[in-house]
Each structure stands twice: as structure tokens, then as C-alpha cells.
């Protein structure tokens, strides 16, 4: 037998083997699912961070113990292909019974998923025996389930199961060795002092170590927060709408009307902070990815890294046996700070942190009741406690005990709202990011950055404003027919209070969206821009 024939034979055998294996898996699945005594539900997600699959598994095991006739199967899918995968599954009506929602448009939500609004207004049976037993499910959430509410569709499509906050992770041993400290300072000026100390140490010792591991992703998390401490007081100006929070639809025309500018002392002060912090990250960090920054930190070439609580388990796993990781809130300047305190109201509140995650139930699910029941269990006090204990993520449900090692992630409730960032919408973000090298370069600085950004900023705001009003008009169109349909449904059931509320809310939203669309057109015209792209 010739060599080629042998290789071809091996190749065909392998293909054949794979085919047989796939076939047997498929038949096994069919036979399991056709067992009339057993209901199988599947749930898919992209949370491949360490500990999360184990957390879901632990919840599923407990659920199966309570319901021996149900089998719960987890289907983790890599984040990069998740959206495409899930769209294919939804179109083919082969989607799992529970789908972690992310990047799903309103149109797809409405088309492929069942709203769970009637159920979130009922109590969760798995909360029986606790102080939550009589409350509607949504009121058992720390955020009142606000994060899951879709204000365009006026429905809930999923029940979130976790919460996330931004924190600084630091290498305890390295910090101690360099500074003699056990923890990080909470005040910005002291923090900056520490960064200088680390750089001096690196220079003198010749060790390759930087204060903060940066990347486009990680640096944005950190410097964005620092910048927005400086605009806290600007938001409270009467011209900003008396909302005590930044509103893009007010900020944008106010910029064109010169109510605020890039040269305002608050803005310059925020940029100064960004410049200072940027100098303590590795050179060229804006070109680096999230993984590069994590690698720097894990390799002990950076003392600190800023990230979200979602990275906690992964960071812990990757650094286990190498060094101890400490966690603390991002430092902020106090109002008493001589350099940056003038424009600060106080520490930033995390009170509005919205619950995260949540599985949607596709219309194609053959086991809607069981899928909903499993979601109720996962998002009950007992189920959420199991998940939190194993995953290391923060709970979404009130009264779930936060394990000792997660205490540093507990949201800071006593604080003030953030001010605004410079980049709040896609085109503005693009022009700001394009010029950030002018700010972060050693030879660069605030003046160079502002000079480079200013000619492009107003136009980028206009571009985003046009996109915004286009979205508002689209919403107005869609609500027009949907609202008419709701009125028809109400005729068939005039006493449905859910429907009544939904109609009243949609009416308010529709009118406000339309007024903002019309006002947006006026603002663009007055600033000398086209209202259409």
C-alpha cells in the first residue's frame, strides 16, 4: 500500500469516527430528551471567567436535587462567537431554553423572547420562608430590577443574577516591598504619591515594574472615573437641567451655546488627572488589549490594575501561588484636596449599580415553565447565595450574604453621582480616543490635547446628536403602531392593570421621545448643522 493511500485511509477513518461520535451524541441527546419522565432544559452564556461555570453548576445541581425529574445542562460559548451563535440558534428555533442576553437588539428581543413582566410582578416561590416571600419578584432585587427593564419595549425579558463594580486590584507583596504599605490610599493625591514612589523604586533598583497595568480597556475604566470627579459640580449648574445627573441631550446643545467648553477649569483639571495617571502606565498602553494588561499584572511587572468585579475570579486563579491580590475602590480626590478638590462633591456613589446578566426565554422553548422556574430559583435568595458563594460575583438579590473575600466589592452607597465624561457617544469617543496620545505622551499634555481635539469635538457631537434624534424618531414610529395595538388589546380586557400601566407609560415615553426629537432638530439647526446625515 502506498504512503498516500495510508494517509488518506487515516483521514477518512478520522472523519468517519467523528461522524459516528457526533451521531451517537445526537442520538444520546434525542433519547434523553424523549424520556417522558425527564424534562431537560439548557442554558447558554459566555461567562467563561474562572468560577462562573462552577457557580452555575452548583445552582443547577441544587435545583436538580429539588426537582429530580428535571435535568439542567449548561452550554458555555466563547464570547467572540456568542452573538452570532445565538442569532443562528434563534432563527433556526434551536436555541437553548435560557439564553444569557447581551448584544440582543430590541427587535430581536421582541421577536424571539417571551416577556416575563407578569411573573416579575408575582412573588418568587423560592423565597418562601424569608422576609422576601410576599414581595413581587422585582422588589427582591437590590436595584429593584431596574437594570432588566427595557424602556423601549416596556417589558422585562430576563432576571439578572449578579452585580458588578469597578475596583483596583493590587499585588500585596510587591506593594509592601516597594512602599512598606499593606493597602492602597483612598485619597487621589496620596495615590499619585504612591505611583511616583513605585517609579522611583523601579529606576533605582532596575527592576521592571510599573505602577498601573494599562490597556485601552483598563485605562478607560480608571481615568474615566477620575475625570468625572472633576465635572461633578458642573452637572449641578442650573443650565444643566436641575437633574443632579448628566444628561447628554442637555450637555450637547450647551456645548454649542458655549455654556461649557473644553477650556473650562473643571475640564482642564480632569484632563490633568488623566495625564498624570497615564504617565504611570506602560508606554503605548492605548495600543494594548485587555489581555496584555492582565499579563503585565500577573507577571508582577505592574503593582496595580483596574478592572471590574467580573475579573475577580480570573485574576485570583491566574495569580494563585504567585502573590496575594488586594482589592480596593478607586481613589478619589476629597473636596479638601488642594489640587483637585475644588470641583468635587464627594466620593462617587455606586448606588445605581444595576444588576447584571439575566437569561431570556426564547419563544421556541418547549419547556417555558421549567425554564422560568429555574430562573426563579437562580434569582431567589437561596439560589443566588449558592451562585455567589461559588462564583465570587456579587449578588443581585437583597439579603444574600456577601462572603468575606468579596467585602471589598460591596457597592459604595454613600456618595455622589459621577459627573460627565468627555466621550459619551460613539463619534465623540472616537475623536477623543484618536487624540489621547497627545495627552498621555510625556511631551504632551492638556494644552496639546485640547488644541488637537477642539476642531473636531463640536462636529462629532453633531454627528452623534443626529444619530440620537434618528433613534428617537424610529422609536416614535414604532411606538405609534404598538400603542394603537395596546389600546385594541385593552378593549378586550379593560381591567388588566398591567396593560393600563403599560399604555400610560408608553404614552408618556412616546411624547417625550418625540419632543426630544423635535428639540434635537432645533438644537442642530441653531448650531449651524444639518439635521440629516
Amino acid at each position: 500500500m502506498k504512503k498516500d493511500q495510508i494517509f488518506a485511509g487515516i483521514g477518512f477513518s478520522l472523519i468517519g469516527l467523528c461522524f459516528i461520535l457526533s451521531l451517537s451524541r445526537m442520538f444520546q441527546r434525542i433519547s434523553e430528551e424523549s424520556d417522558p419522565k425527564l424534562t431537560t432544559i439548557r442554558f447558554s452564556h459566555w461567562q467563561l471567567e474562572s468560577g462562573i461555570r462552577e457557580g452555575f453548576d452548583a445552582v443547577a445541581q441544587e435545583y436538580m436535587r429539588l426537582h429530580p425529574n428535571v435535568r439542567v445542562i449548561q452550554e458555555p460559548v466563547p464570547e467572540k462567537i456568542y452573538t452570532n451563535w445565538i442569532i443562528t440558534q434563534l432563527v433556526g428555533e434551536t436555541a437553548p431554553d435560557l439564553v444569557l442576553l447581551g448584544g440582543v437588539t430590541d427587535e430581536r428581543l421582541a421577536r424571539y423572547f417571551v416577556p416575563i413582566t407578569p411573573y416579575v410582578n408575582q412573588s418568587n416561590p423560592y423565597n418562601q420562608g424569608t422576609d422576601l416571600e410576599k414581595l413581587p419578584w422585582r422588589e427582591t432585587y437590590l436595584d429593584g430590577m431596574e437594570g432588566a427593564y427595557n424602556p423601549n419595549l416596556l417589558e422585562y425579558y430576563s432576571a439578572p443574577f449578579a452585580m458588578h463594580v469597578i475596583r483596583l486590584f493590587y499585588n500585596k507583596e510587591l506593594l509592601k516591598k516597594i512602599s512598606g504599605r499593606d493597602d492602597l490610599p483612598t485619597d487621589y493625591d496620596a495615590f499619585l504619591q504612591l505611583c511616583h514612589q513605585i517609579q522611583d523604586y523601579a529606576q533605582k533598583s532596575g527592576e521592571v515594574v510599573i505602577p498601573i497595568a494599562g490597556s485601552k480597556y483598563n485605562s478607560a475604566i480608571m481615568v474615566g472615573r477620575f475625570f468625572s470627579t472633576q465635572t461633578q459640580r458642573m452637572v449641578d449648574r442650573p443650565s444643566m437641567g436641575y437633574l443632579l445627573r448628566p444628561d447628554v441631550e442637555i450637555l450637547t446643545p450647551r456645548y454649542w451655546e458655549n455654556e461649557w467648553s473644553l477650556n473650562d477649569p473643571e475640564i482642564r483639571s480632569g484632563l490633568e488627572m488623566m495625564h498624570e495617571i497615564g504617565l504611570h502606565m506602560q508606554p503605548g498602553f492605548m495600543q494594548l488589549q485587555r489581555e496584555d494588561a492582565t499579563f503585565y499584572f500577573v507577571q508582577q511587572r505592574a503593582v496595580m490594575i483596574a478592572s471590574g468585579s467580573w475579573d475577580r475570579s480570573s485574576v485570583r486563579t491566574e495569580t494563585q501561588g504567585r502573590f496575594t491580590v488586594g482589592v480596593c475602590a478607586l481613589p478619589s480626590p476629597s473636596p479638601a484636596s488642594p489640587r483637585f478638590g475644588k470641583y468635587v462633591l464627594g466620593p462617587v456613589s455606586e448606588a445605581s449599580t444595576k444588576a447584571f446578566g439575566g437569561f431570556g426565554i426564547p419563544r421556541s422553548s418547549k419547556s417555558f415553565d421549567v425554564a422560568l422556574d429555574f430562573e426563579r430559583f437562580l434569582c431567589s435568595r437561596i439560589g443566588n447565595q449558592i451562585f455567589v458563594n461559588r462564583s465570587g460575583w456579587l449578588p443581585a438579590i437583597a439579603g444574600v450574604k456577601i462572603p468575606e473575600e468579596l467585602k471589598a466589592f460591596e457597592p459604595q452607597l454613600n456618595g455622589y453621582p459621577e459627573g460627565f465624561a468627555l466621550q459619551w457617544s460613539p463619534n465623540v469617543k472616537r475623536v477623543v480616543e484618536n487624540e489621547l496620545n497627545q495627552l498621555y505622551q510625556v511631551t504632551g499634555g492638556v494644552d496639546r490635547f485640547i488644541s488637537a481635539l477642539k476642531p473636531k469635538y463640536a462636529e462629532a457631537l453633531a454627528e452623534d446628536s443626529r444619530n440620537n434624534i434618528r433613534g428617537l424618531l424610529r422609536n416614535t414610529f414604532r411606538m405609534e403602531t404598538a400603542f394603537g395595538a395596546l389600546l385594541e388589546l385593552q378593549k378586550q380586557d379593560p381591567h388588566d392593570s398591567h396593560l393600563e400601566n403599560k399604555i400610560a407609560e408608553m404614552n408618556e415615553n412616546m411624547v417625550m421621545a418625540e419632543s426630544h426629537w423635535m428639540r434635537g432638530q432645533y438644537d442642530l439647526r441653531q448650531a449651524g448643522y444639518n439635521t440629516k446625515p
Partner: protein
Amino acid sequence: MKNLFLFLLVLMGLFQGSYATSLTEEKIWNDASLFLFNEAHEDLKTVRQQGRFPEREENYIEALLLLNVQPKTEENIQRSAELFRRVEEVKGDDERGIAAKYYRGRIMQIHQERPDLVRAEKIYKELLHDFPLNPISQRALIQVVLLRLYGNLEKGEIFHRLEEVEELKGFIRNPSTAVCYHELISDYMIRFGGNKEVILNHLIAAEQAGIHSFMNRADTYVRMGMIARELGKRDVSILYFSKFLKEFQRDARHYQVQMILREMGSVASK
């Protein structure tokens, strides 16, 4: 082979038939209420083949759906206008007739390629005059307010526009219209500047009518508290800030509002 093909055709026909009989007007409206306009339109086509809905009803449903069937085309919009016109032609003073007239106004105002704001406003005013108590006319009233405030607005006209809408207040017949009316005016005045006392009164009127959207409600409470404080109306400010604290415990502004109340010496801050 030929027999098998015929058998399959019959089977498909039966399936299609049973699907069509399971379709109801409720299913169509339900899909439309969930923004599934194309699905609802397809269902309507199936039902139409069976002639189960009266022609006027069918025209009304199709006209409303065509406003959002994708892709949205000018042809669809003009067909929708024509269908609404036919509905109105049969009887102009019943519920369907009034709604059809309102939607013709909406088509002129925002849906058609070249809006005709003057004719749209004329339609709304006619509705308001002829059927002042009808809920559709109340929506027409809000459209008049929107057009008067923002329609082709120029800088020099801002305060004149406000005077124009004040006179429409007397036509308000239901709480939902009251909320929208007062919110529109207060929002306009906050944006363009105006008497704080008047703004506060509009906000109070909106709140008393009962704001349903929780996001709007939170913002309204904060605005009332802030403006009342600026006007030196301590009690009013404390009242609405306290309502905010009670209803929106997880709002990022919660602590700041507590601090403001503390500065004002209110016990509600605790």
C-alpha cells in the same frame, strides 16, 4: 409520484387552513404591541384570504401596521393614508373614524417623506373641536402642543410659543394628557429658560396627575426639589425630595439628596 405530490399539497393546505383559523384579531394586535409588525401583517394577509374580518376593520388594521412594516417605504405610507381615508369615509364620527383621522394627521406630521405640519395641525384641531372628550382627541391635543412648541421653531419665537400653548390647557380631559402637557411645558422652559415659579407649578401639576414612567418620576421629583429650593420654598422642596428618597432608594442621587435635605435642616434626611 403525482398522487404523492397532490397528497402533500392537500396536507399543506390543511395545515395552512388550521393555522389561519387559529389566528385572531387579538393575535395580530398582540404581535403589533410587541413591535412584531411584519409578523402581524403576514397574519392579516392570511386572515384576509378567508374574508373573516369586515373590510373596514381590515383596512384599519392594515393601515396601522403599514406605518411600521419593514422596509418602511413611501408607497406603504401613502397606502396607509389611503386606507385610513377609506375607514373615515364610511363613518367619520365613530371610534374607528376618529382614530383614522388622527392617524392621517400623524402621517402628515411625521411619517410621509415631506411633512405637512399645517394640515396635520388643522386635523388635530378639528378633532379637538368636534370630539373634545374622545381619548384620541386628547392625543391630538398633545400633538398640537408639540407642534406649537417645536414645529419649525426659531430662536426669537421661544417665549411667544409658550403663550400659544397656555390656551390649550382648558381642553385637557384626562390625567395622562395632563402629565404629558405639563411635562412638555416644564421641560421646554427648563431647556430655554423661563419663570421658575411657573416651571414648578407645571411640575407639580404633572406629578399630581400621576406620572407612570418611573424614570420620568425620579427626574421630576429631583427637579421639583431643586427648583423649589432655589425659590426659597423650603417645605415644597422637602416634600418632593422626601418622596424621591422614599421611592428611589437605589438611585445614584439618593445620598446627594439626603445631604441637601440635611443642609435644609429636614428630618427626612435621616
